[in-house]
């Protein structure tokens, strides 16, 4: 039996990788993927806690997160395509016109 803490550590590592990806990569698609990693790290935590607590709540909310993540990926990718057509770039640092 693998103890709960192992799942949580894996999840934390995945979340940290995702966060680092969001902050360090300069490609919008990579950033979107990093966000997916963070979401799945959270999913893992939910499932692990659900299993640990002995009920299905964690799995149910995971399905919700996956649904939302699918929608988010669709909208996000559409935005990325629109931005790319407009600016010929995928680097988020060039999109700074919304400022003072």
């Amino acid at each position, binding site marked *: 039996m693998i103890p709960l803490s192992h799942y949580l550590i894996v999840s934390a590592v995945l979340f940290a990788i995702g*966060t680092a990806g*969001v*902050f360090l990569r300069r490609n919008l698609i990579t950033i979107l993927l990093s966000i997916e990693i963070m979401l799945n790290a959270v999913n893992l935590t939910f499932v692990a806690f659900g299993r640990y607590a002995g009920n299905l709540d964690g799995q149910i909310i995971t399905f919700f997160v996956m649904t939302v993540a699918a929608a988010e990926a669709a909208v996000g990718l559409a935005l990325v395509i629109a931005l790319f057509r407009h600016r010929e770039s995928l680097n*988020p*640092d060039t*999109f*700074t*016109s*919304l*400022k*003072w």
Partner: protein
Amino acid sequence: MLALIPLFPFLGFVVNSTMGRRLPKSVSGGLASLAMLASFAVSLVTVMQLRGLSPEARAIEQTLYTWIASGDLNIGLSFRVDPLSAVMILVITGIGSLIHIYSTAYMHDEVDSEFARYFSYLNLFASFMLVLVLGSNFPLMFVGWEGVGLCSYLLIGFWFKKKSANDAGKKAFIVNRVGDYAFILGMLAIFAKFGTLDFQGVASAVAALPVETEFGILSLATLLLFIGATGKSAQIPLYTWLPDAMEGPTPVSALIHAATMVTAGVYMIGRNAVLFSHAPETLTIVAVIGALTALMAGTIGLVQNDIKRVLAYSTVSQLGYMFLAMGVGAFGAGIFHLYTHAFFKACLFLGSGAVIHALHGEQDIRNMGGLKKELPITYWTFLIGAIAIAGVFPLSGFFSKDEILFETFVEGHQLLWTIGAITALLTATYMFRLVFLTFHGERRHDAPAAADAHGAHDTHDAHGHAPAGHGHADDHDHGHGHSGGHLHDAPPAMALALIVLAIGSVAAGWIGIPHAIGGHNELATWLAPSFSAPSVAGEVAAAEAGAEGEGGGEADHTALELTLMGVSLSIAIAGIAFAYFVWVKRRRIADNMVREFPGLHRLLLNKYYVDEFYDATIVQPIKAVSTEGLWRWFDVRVIDGAVNGAASIVDGSAGVLRRLQSGSVRAYAGSLFVGVVVILGYYLWR
């Protein structure tokens, strides 16, 4: 029934103010006059009813509804007519009707909308004035009090395109405000002391108290009320607005600033006779102020050159007489003089209006003279009014003025009597100066150029050219300085009012013929119940009413009264003779006197510099405080400073904070992340 009396003029006001501009002059003017006549008819019926009652029970009260009910305070919208207010409503509606009729001719040169506006104001005034005298409690009286002040303002500034008329209107309103403030304070003092504001209630409560020997709450309350009266009735120190109020149309001067509104203060003291009788200190002040005002205004009237201003100072002076009467406790005599004064002063003012009308706006008596032949109706009615005000037997002014002087003497105020007698001499002199300079001799054009032009009638030069644009310009273009020309005498509507008022000036006094010369002084007997407390009947009341002096039939009093009558009659004759001598026989004497006493003449011509004194001590300091303190400092620095300061704080902090909005999404995400870590860290390691 009682409510109808003020209601008729009010309806006239409503119609003329809403639809007047679309009505022809005959309809709007006729409607206003009819409203007044209807009101007069109702008043007559009411007074007849009142006469049918026994003297103690003479009062009709009508409560329409409870106006204010709050705790102990219960004020009804209720009208009450008793002998005193009966006299007042007859004067207001009777003389008011005549002046409305007169105005239809006098104001005929105005365009339709202005004409209707004039009559709507005049009707509104009459309505408020009737509320003032019919109100059965202080607040309702105050409603009328303020309402007539408003109408006075509106009518003084009727020709609002003329700056001097606007200024005069504002002056009247603001000076009155000082008095009204004191009036409110007086009302509050009375409520604090008695817990009621009903005239009857206050009178009964006061009657139970001893007469105040030292300055107490009653003296304070009555003094405050009297200050209110000095504002409305143009007494020292608040009289300065009345002469300026002559900027209004002349019928307005006759109705508001001579016959009715300015007597409101006298009426108010008469209404609260019981209250004032219990405050002898205040009464002394009232008498002294009245006598001084009478004397001062009389001396000023002696040298003024504007026909209406002479009459205005004469009004102030006669009002001073009324207050003198009130102050010595002769309430009946004061109201008697109020009543006779309404006739002859209205007659004089309307006569001066007819002169001004005939001369197309000329008001300076230096440009008049010799009008006797051309304006016979005006001349004779004016002359009758002048004889009446001078106090010649048997015209009305003689009886009322004599009663005041007699009561003053009998009450032991010999000094005040002397002042009153001197004023009587002055009155006769300046009135006949006016008569002689206006109607006798040859037509003159002595006034320095730029004569005071009348607002309604366009400006014209001092040589009497008929002004262009005036209705009668073509027919009456009389030439340079010739005494001839074809002047119009008063048209029928004006003549009617003049003749009726002249008859009134002769006969009005006959209801108050004193016992000493075989009369019955019906007016004093009629008024007596109004000056006594409702619960206290009998001798105290009679004494306060001043009816007992003659009633006793004491021989020494009769002899004294006859002597005093002789004195005042000879004073009046002497004044007239002096005026005749100086201004008809030896015109040079007047000029010599001016040259002999240039300082005195200038002092009087400039009205003792009181206006200048008020300007320097009150107006300018207030202006300075308002400009420097309230405007430049408080408004600009403090209020604007607070508003602008708040804006610049937001502006400054926003200038710093907006740097955070870099537009870099990752910077936002970074700050979000840091925030989450900090908050989580706080909860975890706390």
